[in-house]
């Protein structure tokens, strides 16, 4: 059973010597941090852009629609890695840039464009009677949007939002191009030291899988919590 021993040795080399497991952990930390910040920023941008777009239609503000559409089209129409490099080189001029933050901001701006379209679809799926009922009670447009329309919209679009966040977590694996040592970069780095690239990559893949499954679980719990008004 020589190959079992070889396999064991490969993975042992990929994890234990020189405290290599710490490299994965640091990479994992960077990946999680970028993902989390990017998701939060993506939600913030997404909600704002979606509400602006819907409001622009309701109040016939063409210029606002144009501004929102330019943002969405530019972001969706160019590759994420190119955006990452452009933003990095735009900001790196100041020398003491925190690559992690640049990465998170870039992924957030990118995600915001997708999230905003998902949320807009959610807002438009809500019957206009809901807005009218809120307004007829004396709530203003933004109060009705915040307390009545958005909560219902988010409930409807949770599966689509979950998809977007899963994609986002996996896309952070290109953060290496701006010198962030994320999980993928850490695996490549270890592979270059052990001359055996496959084990670290498999380990990194397993880490991504666990993260995504964790997020899916979290989302399904959230979905169940939000569907409490659906019981008949």
């Amino acid at each position: 059973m020589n190959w079992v021993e070889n396999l064991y040795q490969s993975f042992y080399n990929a994890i234990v010597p020189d405290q290599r497991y710490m490299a994965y952990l640091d990479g994992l930390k960077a990946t999680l941090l970028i993902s989390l910040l990017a998701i939060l920023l993506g939600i913030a941008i997404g909600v704002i852009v979606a509400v602006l777009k819907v409001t622009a239609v309701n109040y016939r503000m063409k210029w606002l629609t144009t501004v929102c559409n330019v943002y969405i089209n530019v972001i969706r129409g160019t590759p994420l890695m190119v955006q990452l490099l452009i933003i990095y080189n735009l900001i790196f001029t100041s020398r003491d840039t925190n690559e992690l933050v640049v990465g998170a901001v870039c992924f957030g701006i990118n995600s915001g464009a997708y999230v905003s379209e998902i949320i807009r679809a959610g807002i438009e799926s809500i019957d206009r009677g809901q807005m009218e009922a809120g307004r007829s009670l004396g709530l203003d447009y933004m109060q009705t949007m915040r307390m009545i329309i958005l909560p219902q919209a988010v409930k409807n679009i949770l599966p689509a939002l979950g998809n977007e966040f899963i994609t986002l977590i996996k896309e952070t694996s290109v953060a290496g191009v701006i010198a962030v040592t994320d999980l993928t970069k850490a695996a490549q780095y270890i592979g270059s030291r052990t001359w055996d690239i496959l084990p670290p990559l498999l380990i990194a893949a397993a880490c991504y899988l666990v993260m995504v499954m964790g997020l899916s679980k979290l989302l399904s719990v959230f979905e169940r919590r939000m569907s409490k008004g659906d019981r008949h």
Partner: protein
Amino acid sequence: MIVTKNLKKSFGDHVVLNGINETIHKGEKVVVIGPSGSGKSTFLRCLNLLEVPTEGEIWFEEHNITDKKTDINILRRKMGMVFQQFNLFPHLTVRENITLAPVKLGLMTKAEANDKAMELLKRIGLVEKADAYPNQLSGGQKQRIAIIRALAMNPDVMLFDEPTSALDPEMVGEVLDLMAQLADEGMTMVVVTHEMRFAKRVATRVLFMDEGRIVEQNTPEEFFENPKNPRLQEFLSKIL
């Protein structure tokens, strides 16, 4: 209390309201009837500016609500509205539906709003539904809760937009009974409806609209016994 002056509303080339001059006094119960497409719902929805008139003025309690400088949100607190499709908030419980606006607008504390909600629920016999969600209720229950949701704001006038049209026939009665009670207590009401028995029983005045105008109005007795306009005669002969 509500005065409209030469009220006009068009959607594109389509004229829906063609010059309405009408005064609704405090304590009146005005029922608006008319064939579909006559503009009666649009007229009602203009009164609290859910539809913005193309021309003309609407005055409510000495405020010109069609003036851009008027804060319509403040005035809407005093104008309760009930919709054909109920429009309860499905993500909130019955209690939250009723207390949301008074609390968020700072008119009542949470406790005050809650007491008010329970008092109103008691009145319509639905106390045990306070923590239910709208989807767990029947149509008649939903509409009665929509009515008390509006009442929780202590409005000066209640606008009803075909409140029984989306209900199963056996649930129409409970909603009309509640509306009749409100009328007896002196609430000013404007009701767009197809329920002629309700108009006869509750209205102090009945308006007949056709093609964007009020073509006839009278006390319910005269209106139904002695219609003068040929369109009204034809309309009544079809539905009575």
